């Protein structure tokens, strides 16, 4: 894939960030952590752009970003009510991937390469969390789901992280043998999936309902 197209697709992150900034007052109570994640994503994209040009790799920036992504999203789910009453389980679930990240990136010294175990595990856990949240909303939420920002965000997350698992498979396979047409296709489509999820997140911020004003006259 041409680097220009890749660059353009990666810039789709601006869409949810700009929408988020415009609607910041509305999203700051329930979606602040998610918004911070998007801002972190934007910063990582900029750093990646520079480091690829200078060092021909964005592994360090990406490895730090995935850890931030895990922490922010896990806390965001917790804030939305997931495992809110089972704090111990939540912290246990939170800490295991962090330990794996530390071992993989600091002890095994792979911070300059892409860390597969952590990336697979956190993508897997976040998919399960998104599924739980979606099913909870299906069962309990009386509002229309297609206009529910949480529902839209979770759909985006499932799409992104399930594809990330598939991408990791393609990446690991291509490390063992010569990349096939199939594995190359999976890898190259990742940028499009990333752009699509950014659009979904932007839409989610757009459908956050405005404040209801009550007036006593």
């Amino acid at each position: 894939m041409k680097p220009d197209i890749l660059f353009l697709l990666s810039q789709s992150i601006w869409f949810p960030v700009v929408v988020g900034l415009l609607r910041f007052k509305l999203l700051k109570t329930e979606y602040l952590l998610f918004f911070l994640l998007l801002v972190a994503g934007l910063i990582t994209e900029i750093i990646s752009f520079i480091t690829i040009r200078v060092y021909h790799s964005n592994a360090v920036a990406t490895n730090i970003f995935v850890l931030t992504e895990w922490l922010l999203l896990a806390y965001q789910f917790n804030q939305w009510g997931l495992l809110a009453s089972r704090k111990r389980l939540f912290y246990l679930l939170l800490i295991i991937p962090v330990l794996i990240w530390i071992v993989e990136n600091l002890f095994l010294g792979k911070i300059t390469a892409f860390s597969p175990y952590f990336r697979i595990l956190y993508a897997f856990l976040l998919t399960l969390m998104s599924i739980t949240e979606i099913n909870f909303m299906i069962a309990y939420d009386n509002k229309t789901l297609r206009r529910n920002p949480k529902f839209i965000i979770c759909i985006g997350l499932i799409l992104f992280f399930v594809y990330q698992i598939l991408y990791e498979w393609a990446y690991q396979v291509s490390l063992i043998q010569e990349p096939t047409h199939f594995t190359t296709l999976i890898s190259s489509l990742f940028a499009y999936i990333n752009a699509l999820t950014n659009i979904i997140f932007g839409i989610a911020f757009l459908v956050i309902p405005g404040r209801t004003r009550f007036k006593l006259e």
Partner: protein
Amino acid sequence: MQNQLLYITVIFSVLITIIIIYFFVSIIRYHRKYVKLQRERILAEITIQENERKRIATDLHDSLGPLLSAVKLNINSIEIQPQDSEILERAGKSLDEIIGSMRQISYDLLPNTLAMKGLTEAIQEFISHVGHKNGINIQMYVVKDVHVPKEKEIHIFRMIQEIIHNAIKHAKAKNLQIGLSEEDRSLLLLAKDDGIGFDVEKEKKKSRGLGLKSLESRCEILNGVISIESRPGFGTNFFVKIPFD
């Protein structure tokens, strides 16, 4: 190399499979919770309704009733002129009708017998009440004494009331048999009428079938099961099983 490839593919396939299985398990879990929540909501609504009925029935019986009786007593104690006697007689009759209607309303809202003598007596009283008035022959058999928990009595009574109303109003039945029994800490209720019958599925789909819906709702909150068998021209059978625990 091939083995390594196979392992990686198997591991990733397992992960994807877990995600899919988790999706279904989670949706089933939440569906169960949702059903439980719905049941609690229905129970709360029906309980509020029953409490309100009880309050109105008590108010009618204890406040309005004695007041009307006192008015009648006062009227009767008036020294009357011969020309006013007809008017007072008519007023007295009207008062008797009002007292009678009020007692009927109070009874329909909540029969005293249910609280004082229990479910079987209350049903029998209700049967003799409606049977005479509507020209239907209702027979009740208590195969084995039933010991229904107090909090469930009112719901079972309302269900039987609904079945009887259905036989009179919609089925236009001449005969209705009601059987009660207890088996394995559960109440068994069988009702059979010789009315015009109806298409059960069709009636359930119609929003008009409020009576049937009410029967099903009450049965659901009591964790019971209800089966309705009917065909146009062949009467209707109701089978109800309600656990006591």
